[in-house]
């Protein structure tokens, strides 16, 4: 494998960071401010994209920033896995920026400059996490991301957001300091390195009980992944403005949590070690539990964003589940679900936000018949649902397919049942919404009069249409991403 | 608290006594303390500095750096008393005595002024007429005390004495004046500005000598380097340097003693008090 030294990963992280002072100084001129955001978004995306060919050709791009101690430095590395994640986050950032303009202006939110600044900080941290070369760097960006999203969750500055923000912080910061930090330092103490390597870093220095404890500390410690019982921050964090929920709580933040777990399983422990101790099953049990229980909870939620949140929790566990299968197809299915779920879920959140801006409705029970008023939105919602459930013609099908294949490969037939059951549950909590929206009768249109089409403004509709179409596109062209994952995980 | 204190005292005392077990006997000429540095000082000081009083030599030369900070500590104490207690607000209740008649006047408003010139005297509330005998004796004594103080400073090199001792004696002569007459008499003669300038100046003489040595190319406080500046034979130069330093110390200590006294007895008002 060829190793290239390049400053590009650092630049990718720095671009959104450097644009923050400009955003702050142009707070009186919203248009200028928004232009800068797009500029930064595109520059960042092109930087990421420019590294794709190199990564696809099997090279690895590295850049070391600072050395703390041997084996533990602040360093970047771009491999297939990180590239996949960076592509997802980078492309969706641009779309979300467009969406948030429509949303924030549509609702005349306060503190928009603060909002976009911390948004940029959050995306910078996400990129950093994607390109981390070792656990220390990953932890660094993980923490920055936690703190950058705090003001976003607390955006409304009222009692409800105060409680939610507090819960968010207690779970995220508490677990990362209380579990990940000691586990990480212990790893360093044992091995003297924290750099990711597909063979794992332990090389037989770990007994089974120690490995189990460490693994559990990591899996629960990265609470952004929403593994139960550390999931309840996510529904609470839905008080944030919808763009935050969309990008951060469907894509960036939660996926960083899952991504960290994937990194730990594949890069720190290594597949062989876990297979040797048979620890994959432990993680799978935890993930399965989360999948089923949160799906059931999602069924009972009436607030759309909360239902989406619980759905997210269960979908995140798919990824963890897939990686913990330790079989090639399972890992492929799990990791590619990062991509597929991101596009599906962000579409759903965009729709929820668009509905709220256009009609002020938050609850599913109020949405009967709304599909005739907002056909584009609900069509997108339908596509997004299909993606999350895992039905063709959306990319979600591809990941679900591989996951099920993986369970068969690993010989874990019981867990296949889990996947199937949860898919049914997914269908149960999404499809009725769409059905009711198009064919149900709301209170207002008892008269049967023809409803006027009344979509939200273009800034809102365009992004959700784009992501919905992308979701379908991924069904037909997943090959590049499959290659990235295969390279990244050495499958 | 009493029991707690007792326990602490017992523990500390026990530790200290335990420590004495391995200490050399009292007055043992062979103990490390009496041989290692001590022998060097006793045998080499006169040769190196021409100062027969070893304590002065070690104090002002070998450990002159320590002594400089010691003087700074004294300065600190004076400044601390000033900072903590000095009160510039005039006192509300004031008493005046009409000197020819001995009548006392009590003013409750600080703004009130007396027009008559020298006939009135600002008084303490619990004023007692000063005793003739005490006044006279002190008046005679104070100059002698002060001369003695100067002698102690100047003779620190050869006999017991030095800047600290001399300074304290000088300061106490001034305090004696305040006690035998009253505080106002002292404050009138030795103003606050005078004292504070002298306190700083005294330490400054010390540090200045050291810096001068440094400017002449030596180490800080290396009096030997002052030879070109002082009219003396090179052998004596360290002794002269020490004398200069002792004078500085004396000035500072004298001023600070008086500052502390004045501030504490008058609660910072500099008008009434002992």
């Amino acid at each position, binding site marked *: 494998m060829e190793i290239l030294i390049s400053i590009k990963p650092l630049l990718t992280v720095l671009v959104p960071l450097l644009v923050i002072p400009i955003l702050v100084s142009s707070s009186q001129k919203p248009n200028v401010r928004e232009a800068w955001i797009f500029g930064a978004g595109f520059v960042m995306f092109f930087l990421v994209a420019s590294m794709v060919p190199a990564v696809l050709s099997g090279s690895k791009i590295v850049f070391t920033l*600072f*050395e*703390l*101690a041997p084996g*533990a430095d602040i360093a970047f590395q771009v491999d297939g896995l990180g590239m996949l994640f960076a592509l997802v986050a980078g492309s969706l950032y641009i779309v979300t920026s467009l969406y948030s303009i429509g949303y924030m202006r549509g609702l005349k939110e306060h503190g928009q400059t603060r909002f976009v600044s911390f948004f940029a900080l959050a995306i910078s941290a996400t990129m950093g996490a994607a390109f981390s070369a070792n656990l*220390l760097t990953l932890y*660094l960006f993980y*923490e*920055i991301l936690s*703190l950058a999203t705090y003001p976003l969750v*607390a955006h409304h500055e*009222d009692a409800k957001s*105060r409680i939610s923000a507090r819960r968010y912080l207690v779970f995220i*910061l508490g677990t990362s*300091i*209380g579990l990940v*930090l*000691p586990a990480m*330092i212990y790893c*360093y*103490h044992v091995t003297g390195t924290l750099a990711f390597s597909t063979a794992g870093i332990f090389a037989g220095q770990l007994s089974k009980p120690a490995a189990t404890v460490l693994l559990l500390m990591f899996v629960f410690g990265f609470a952004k992944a929403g593994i139960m019982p550390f999931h309840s921050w996510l529904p609470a964090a839905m008080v944030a403005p919808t763009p935050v929920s969309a990008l951060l709580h469907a894509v960036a933040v939660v996926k960083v949590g899952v991504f960290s777990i994937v990194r730990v399983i594949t890069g720190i422990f290594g597949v062989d070690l876990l297979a040797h101790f048979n620890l994959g099953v432990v993680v799978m049990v935890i993930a399965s539990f989360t999948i089923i229980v949160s799906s059931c909870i999602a069924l009972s939620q009436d607030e759309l964003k909360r239902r989406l949140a619980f759905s997210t929790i269960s979908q995140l566990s798919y990824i963890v589940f897939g990686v913990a299968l330790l079989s090639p197809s399972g890992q492929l299915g799990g990791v590619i679900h990062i991509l597929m779920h991101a596009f599906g879920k962000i579409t759903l959140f965009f729709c929820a936000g668009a509905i709220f801006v256009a009609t002020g409705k938050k609850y599913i029970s109020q949405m009967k018949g709304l599909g005739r008023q907002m056909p584009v939105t609900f069509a997108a919602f339908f596509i997004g649902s299909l993606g999350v459930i895992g039905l063709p013609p959306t990319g979600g099908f591809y990941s679900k397919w591989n996951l099920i294949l993986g369970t068969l490969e690993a010989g874990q037939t019981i867990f296949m049942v889990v996947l199937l059951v949860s898919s049914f549950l997914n269908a149960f909590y999404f499809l009725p919404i769409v059905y009711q929206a198009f064919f149900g009768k709301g209170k207002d249109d008892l008269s049967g009069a023809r409803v006027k089409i009344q979509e939200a403004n273009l800034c809102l509709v365009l992004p959700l249409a784009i992501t919905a179409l992308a979701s379908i596109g991924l069904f037909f062209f997943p090959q590049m991403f499959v290659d990235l994952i295969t390279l990244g995980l050495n499958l | 608290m009493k029991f707690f204190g007792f326990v602490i005292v017992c523990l500390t005392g026990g*530790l*200290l006594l*335990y*420590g*004495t077990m*391995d*200490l050399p006997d009292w007055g043992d000429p062979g103990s*490390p*303390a*009496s041989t*290692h*540095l001590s022998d060097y000082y006793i045998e080499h000081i006169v040769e190196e500095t021409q100062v027969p009083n070893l304590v002065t030599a070690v104090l002002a*030369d*070998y*450990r002159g*750096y*320590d002594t400089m*900070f010691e003087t*700074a*500590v004294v*300065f*600190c104490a004076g*400044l*601390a008393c*000033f*900072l*903590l207690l000095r009160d510039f607000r005039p006192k509300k209740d004031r008493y005046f005595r009409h000197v020819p008649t001995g009548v006392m006047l009590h003013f409750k408003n600080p703004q009130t002024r007396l027009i008559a010139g020298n006939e009135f005297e600002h008084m303490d509330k619990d004023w007692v007429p000063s005793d003739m005998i005490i006044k006279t004796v002190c008046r005679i004594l104070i100059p002698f005390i002060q001369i003695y103080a100067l002698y102690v400073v100047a003779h620190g090199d050869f006999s017991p004495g030095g800047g600290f001792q001399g300074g304290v004696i000088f300061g106490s002569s001034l305090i004696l004046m305040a006690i035998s007459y009253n505080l106002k008499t002292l404050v009138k003669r030795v103003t606050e500005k005078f004292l504070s*300038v002298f*306190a*700083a*100046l005294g330490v*400054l003489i010390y*540090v200045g000598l050291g810096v001068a040595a*440094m400017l002449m190319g*030596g*180490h*800080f*406080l*290396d009096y030997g380097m002052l030879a070109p500046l002082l009219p003396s034979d090179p052998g004596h130069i360290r002794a002269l340097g020490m004398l200069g330093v002792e004078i500085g110390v004396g000035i500072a200590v004298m001023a600070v003693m008086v500052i502390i006294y004045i501030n504490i007895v008058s609660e910072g008002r500099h008008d009434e008090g002992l």
Partner: protein
Amino acid sequence: MNNMPAILVLAPLLGAFFACLAAWIQKQLSYYIALAAMAVSCFAAVSVLTDVITSGTMQYRMAGWAPPMGIELRIDLLNAMVLVLISAIAFVNLVASVKNVEQEISDRAPSFYVMYLLFVVGLLGVTATGDLFNLYVLIEITSLTSYTLIALGDKDRAPLAALNYIFIGVIGASFYLLGVGYLYITTGSLNMADVAVILKGIQGSSAVLTAFILCILGVWIKMALFPLHVWLPNAYAFAPVGFARVVAPLMTKVMVYVMVRLMVTVFGLEYIFETLNLADAVVWLAVTAILAGAFTALFQKDLKKMLAYIIVCEIGYMVGGAWLGNSLGMTGAILHILNDGLMTFALFLAVGNIIYMRRQTAFSDLSGLFAAMPWTMAGFVLAGLSIIGVPPTCGFFSKWYLVLGAFEAGAYHFAAALIISSLVCAVLFFKVFEICFFEADSGAGDHNPAKVITEAPVSMLASLGLVSVAIIAAGIYAGTIVDTIILPFLQ
């Protein structure tokens, strides 16, 4: 001959007396003299540090006498670093505090500056000296000045707090003096290096043990290690803020330095960890200190008090780290001297700004601060995160070494205490952040919900900004600091 080590101490000393004289001419002059003196000292400290890094330990013979006879300044990597820290903080604080001093003690500001300079002289002298008794004299200068300056604070309670501090401080200093007495009786010398050589031959002596215990106890009292900390919270909370800012970060840190110096240079680590069996007990004491400090801080209702207890907690970090008995722990402790100095300074700078604008620091007075003083709060948040130990702030990296050292020594209770205190600090700081963020400023009035920015003067903000940058820089370059300063020192 390089006179820089002497100049470093003498510049503020001379400055103090000139400032005292100048005050009789023009009050303002004394401030500028103080500023100039500190600038010179700062410059000298930096030049000494670079010299020591390039050409090794510096010795400066006071009055030209060779070491055991005369007093020497002995500056190696450790104290060079601490000297830079002290002079830099003292200088920056002088810039930042001029307005606070005007506000709090306007009528005797010149005397304040004189005292302030003498305090700094004491700290610098303590750090630079190579003589045990000289150390005592200089400790007394710092103590005497700090008693006085603390008493200038809160009119009602500061004198009492200061008097308590005197009693305990005198006991501490006297213990140290007694310890030096025992050392002198057994070795006949006062020079640290000389004493260390002689001590190697008489390690079994009960007198040496007593001397060691007395010295260390004395230093512990002065640094306020739990349970000898009772004087600290009141003293620091009631002190005038211009002084609290410099005494809080520096006084305890310098005492930790003295402890490290006594352990490493005078008594020798071999003696402490191999001949004596105290290390375990001391680490447990440190654990208690950390937990007690952190949990007592939870119950405080005033920002200054809370910070004071956090200092108590941080002292536990350093003492525990130094007594772990391995070089990682010692590295962490030494690094934490630097880092904690910076963090505490930044926190108190922010507190000073708040006091300047609001006069009060009770939690109930902090509402709406994020809106009113965004820059001050940005610095405060950064310092708070550093105390919590979030990367890339410097607090994380010293914690890293401390936990690593704890693992290596098998002191898992110490590692646990560090993690728990981080969590408690997170609770503490986010409690404050919440109050400042969510609760609207009652003073601003309801009719004017638009946020009025009432920031502190530029000089104060610039200082805070500078220290914030230093916090990040110390974090990023933690590896460099360890490699160039701490590890060479320990070898």
